[in-house]
């Protein structure tokens, strides 16, 4: 499937902000099942954009604005060709030793409740893949999608106790539980063509990956109860959402800020998807 993505993040500050510096993890890479046809980052202010990669292998742009800015839009736009690999991630850039993905972080720490929950998902024969499938199903059932009660800093334990959350929260709970079971797991930020079709989305998507012996990294999307399909575009990985966040920024002054995301993921015109229709 060929997907066309336009992802705009717009910051509005109460007063002009200076020394804006933003770390952007907004650029997908190639791996089996995903080919980036074209992609670019367009900052909506004068400044300098440099690119490199971080310790996970994510492509990172650093944007620094020259002047004071009161309204800043960062746009990532491009096309990605995807194919069905059953959620198995091969030929991706891997820089961090697998064992590091067992480390718990503030947002992915398993509390008593998550540990007990995780234990119930163990496959009877001790196999990793079925355990992760059980876990995906259980997380999907345990947390109802609700945008209101959680924020970007909600921890897995908090979301699990609430039983409510967004894709970030479901992914954190999945990761916390998997790590408790001794399965290396990590956070993925990316895009998805929603099952209901083309809509204006107000946030990117997130899911998790677990390491399966002999198979490698396998994606699990507990929000949509599926392993990643050709509708998913994988952008950045990390131990938790803070490390894979699309944008991390700092500034001086500016007062309060509002952030608005306008994201569309749609089949590219003339792409394979349309021909199949």
């Amino acid at each position, binding site marked *: 499937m060929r997907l066309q993505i336009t992802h705009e993040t717009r910051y509005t500050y109460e007063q002009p902000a200076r*020394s804006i*510096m933003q*770390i952007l993890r907004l650029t997908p890479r190639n791996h089996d099942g995903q080919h980036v046809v074209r992609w670019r980052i367009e900052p909506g202010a004068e400044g*300098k954009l440099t690119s490199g990669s*971080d*310790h*996970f292998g994510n492509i990172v742009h*650093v944007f*620094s604005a020259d002047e004071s800015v009161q309204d800043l839009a960062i746009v990532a736009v491009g096309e990605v060709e995807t194919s069905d690999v059953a959620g198995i991630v091969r030929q991706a850039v891997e*820089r*961090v*030793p697998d*064992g*590091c993905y*067992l*480390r718990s*972080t503030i947002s992915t720490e398993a509390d008593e409740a998550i540990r007990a929950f995780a234990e119930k998902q163990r496959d009877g024969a001790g196999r990793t893949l079925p355990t992760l499938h059980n876990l995906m199903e259980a997380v999907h059932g345990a947390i109802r999608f609700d945008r209101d009660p959680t924020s970007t800093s909600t921890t897995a334990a908090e979301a699990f106790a609430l039983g409510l959350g967004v894709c970030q929260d479901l992914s954190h709970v999945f990761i916390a539980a998997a790590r408790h079971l001794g399965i290396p797991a990590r956070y993925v930020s990316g895009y998805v063509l929603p099952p209901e079709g083309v809509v204006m989305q107000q946030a990117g998507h997130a899911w998790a990956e677990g390491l399966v012996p002999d198979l490698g990294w396998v994606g699990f999307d507990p929000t949509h109860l599926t392993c990643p399909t050709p509708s998913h575009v994988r952008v950045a990985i990390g131990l938790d959402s*803070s490390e894979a966040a699309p944008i*991390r*920024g*700092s500034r001086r002054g500016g007062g309060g800020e509002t952030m608005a995301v306008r994201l569309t993921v749609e089949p590219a015109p003339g792409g394979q998807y349309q021909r199949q229709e």
Partner: protein
Amino acid sequence: MLIDSFDEMNGRPGSAEVRPPYASLRKWLDDTSAETFDARRDQAEHFFRRVGITFAVYGDNESSERLIPFDVIPRVLMKSEWDFLERGLKQRVTALNAFLADIYGPQECLRAGIVPSDLIFQNPQYRLEMKDVAVPHNIYVHIAGVDVVRVGENDFYVLEDNARTPSGVSYMLENREVMMRLFPELFMSHRVAPVENYPDALLATLRSVAPIRQSRDAVVTLLTPGRYNSAYYEHSFLADKLGVELVEASDLFVKDDVVYMRTTQGPTQVDVIYRRIDDDFIDPLAFRPDSVLGVPGLINAYKAGNVTLANAIGTGISDDKAVYTYMPDIVRFFTGQEPLLQNVPTWRCREPDSLSYVLDNLGELVVKEVAGSGGYGMLVGPHATKAEIEDFARKIRHSPEGFIAQPTLSLSTCPTFAASGVAPRHVDLRPFVLSGSDEIRIVPGGLTRVALKEGSLVVNSSQGGGTKDTWVLDGGS
């Protein structure tokens, strides 16, 4: 309760023998009247109050700042003892730097099985950001404050390596200054090795590790979290002694991966940052996003090789108490020599056999949290109540990997002023080891901390410990 400890003055507690380095101090103690000592101790306290050398204690409701008690009786080491310690410290810090360069580089010690890789990889102090980053001159621990305890005439153990942002060196310097003012005659009759050159040694060390660049002198700054930090006094004291700018995060900014300091003459490029702020807070774009104490973009500038951070990011992994237990093997692996300084034998509660031994013998052991510091989160078995021991046993059972246990060491004692007169009190020693690109520098001695409560083995200033001047006597006595 004083267990059978080595006494720095008498050898054995209560012995009439006086060890050679203390011979004339003993006489000084005998010949000086109680009134004189009382007056001198008052003067010392006035001195410390006037210079404002205080220490903030977290979680203390009564006062947020207090003086660390100073004891006027010096702790003395013979030159020959110090020479041995110095060799051992240099060996240990050399190994530490090689170990850090290795785990953030080729990881040969993990492949060789010297240290289990899960212990490194799963520890948040192992900063993934630092993997394969070339730090200037390949030095990670520029300043180490190694805690050494003595349990016998020739037995020295390292308790902790303190490879992050060790503090206390201002006390070493101030203690000497106050002693020289109060008792000038002692320094006439003893050849005490000087410590006043510490700031020069530190500055030379910091300059030597600047990124390699053109001819101008390296610009060094000291980065403090600010006045609310418990060691703020030391930060301003050291910046003053070094003759470098004391800066907070808002005084620095990063442009095009270069760090600048705002000055009245405009921005000045900074080459070396002696940072007294933890990794987690140093750059909100790289670590904790809620940190207001950090410099945005600093880590990118660091990774680009445009600035040196002292100490490097990621040295906390070697302060982990579980990693500590592997130090003897780490020293052997990286130096090819037998360690001169011993490690305290340690049970790792993550290992089932050790765990059951520890739980069965809690009453005799010292148990520490692997990530703890400053004497917090620690059980001293012989001094604990039954309830405290039971409480700790529950914590250990709940997360064994979070704890290590050690035998209760009989730290050496040193004569100290107590309410009842001069009495033996347990001491440790924190020498400061400076690793530059040219050489390793250690001023003779270090900071002696003393547990003022009779029988107490906890010397931490946050737990009621005091300090003493530390003498290395040149030429015997």
